[in-house]
C-alpha cells in the first residue's frame, strides 16, 4: 500500500483524533502532519504483523499523548472545539442521522467526551468513533482486552448520563 493510499484512508480519522485530544485547529493540524510524517518514515518497514489501522492509530495516539503530556493536558476543558464540530456538520435535509440526533445532544455528548478521563475517552473514541475492535484498541493502547471492556462501559455510562441530563 502506498503512502498516498494510507493518507487518504486515515486522513480524517487521524485529524479527528488530534482535534478531539488537542482542541485547537492549528495544534491538530501540526500534530496530524507530524503523525503522517512518522507514518511515511515507518511505512517501508511495516510488514503487516498488525492491522494497518492499528499501526496508524498507535503512531497517532503515542504522538498525541506525548504532546498532551508536554503541554500538561490531562483533560481538555472543552470550551472550544465542540461548537466548531457542530458547525461543521452539514445542514442537509437528506441526512437521516441529522434528523434523529438533535444538535443539542451532539453538543452535550461532545462536552461530556471532553470531561472524560483521557484513558476512557480514547477507548470510546476508537470504538464508537472509529469502529475499532476491542482487540485492536487493546493493541493500540497496549492494555489487556478486559481493561478495554471496563473502560468502555464506564465511559459510555458517563456519556449517556450526561447526554440525557
Amino acid at each position, binding site marked *: 500500500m502506498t503512502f498516498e493510499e494510507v493518507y487518504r484512508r486515515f486522513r*480524517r480519522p487521524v485529524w479527528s483524533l488530534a482535534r478531539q485530544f488537542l482542541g485547537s485547529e492549528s495544534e491538530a493540524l501540526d500534530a496530524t502532519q507530524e503523525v503522517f510524517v512518522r507514518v511515511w518514515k515507518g511505512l*517501508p518497514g511495516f510488514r503487516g504483523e498488525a492491522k494497518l489501522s492499528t499501526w496508524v492509530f498507535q503512531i497517532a495516539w503515542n504522538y498525541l499523548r506525548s504532546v498532551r503530556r508536554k503541554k500538561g493536558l490531562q483533560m481538555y476543558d472543552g470550551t472550544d472545539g465542540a461548537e466548531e464540530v457542530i458547525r461543521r456538520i452539514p445542514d442537509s435535509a437528506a441526512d437521516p442521522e441529522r434528523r434523529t440526533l438533535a444538535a443539542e445532544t451532539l453538543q452535550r455528548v461532545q462536552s461530556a467526551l471532553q470531561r472524560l478521563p483521557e484513558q476512557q475517552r480514547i477507548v470510546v473514541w476508537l470504538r464508537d468513533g472509529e469502529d475499532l475492535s476491542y482487540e485492536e484498541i487493546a493493541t493500540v493502547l497496549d492494555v489487556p482486552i478486559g481493561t478495554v471492556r471496563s473502560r468502555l462501559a*464506564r465511559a459510555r455510562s458517563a*456519556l449517556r448520563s450526561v447526554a440525557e441530563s
Partner: protein
Amino acid sequence: MIGEDTRELLSRFVDDDLSPSEAASLRRRMQREPTMRRELDELQETRRAVRLLATRDQPPDLLDDLVVELRRQGRPSPRNLVVPLLAAAALVVMCFTLVLEMNRQDHPTELVTGRAVATPGVFALSALPEATGDAPLGPLEELLARPYPPPALLEAEPLIVVGPLPEPPPR
C-alpha cells in the same frame, strides 16, 4: 438501579461481544426490566452521536500540501535501496578482482603503505612499518624516513643576493 456489571454487559451487548448464551440471558432480563431496555437505547444513541462527531469533522485542505511535499521528496521504500546495494556489491567485486589480478601478474609484493604477509598471494594492509632491522623499508618509505632538510643542506653557506649582476664590459 443498574449495577456496573450490568452496564458492562450492556456495553458488550451493543458491540456483539457477548456469547450467545450471555446475550440471550440479557435479552430475557431486558424484557422483564424496562429500565435496562431504556438504558440500552440511550447507550446506542450516544454511540451514534460519537460516531457522527468523529466522522463529520473533516480536515482542512491545507493538510494535503504535506502529501505533495512528501511525494516530492520521494518515499524511502526498500525498492529504492536495491540500486545502492547493487553498486556497493559491484564495488566489492571489483576491488577483489583487482587484488587477485595484481597478485597473478607478479606485481611487487609490497604495497605503498603495506607489507606482504607470509602467505603468498594474499595482501594485507598494515600501518607504515618503522625503520627497524627486521622490517626492510620500501623505496618510498625509505625516502619518507630520511630527515628533511638534509644535513648537508643545513651546513652549506647561505647565498647572499646583492642585486642584479653588472653587465660584462664590451669586447
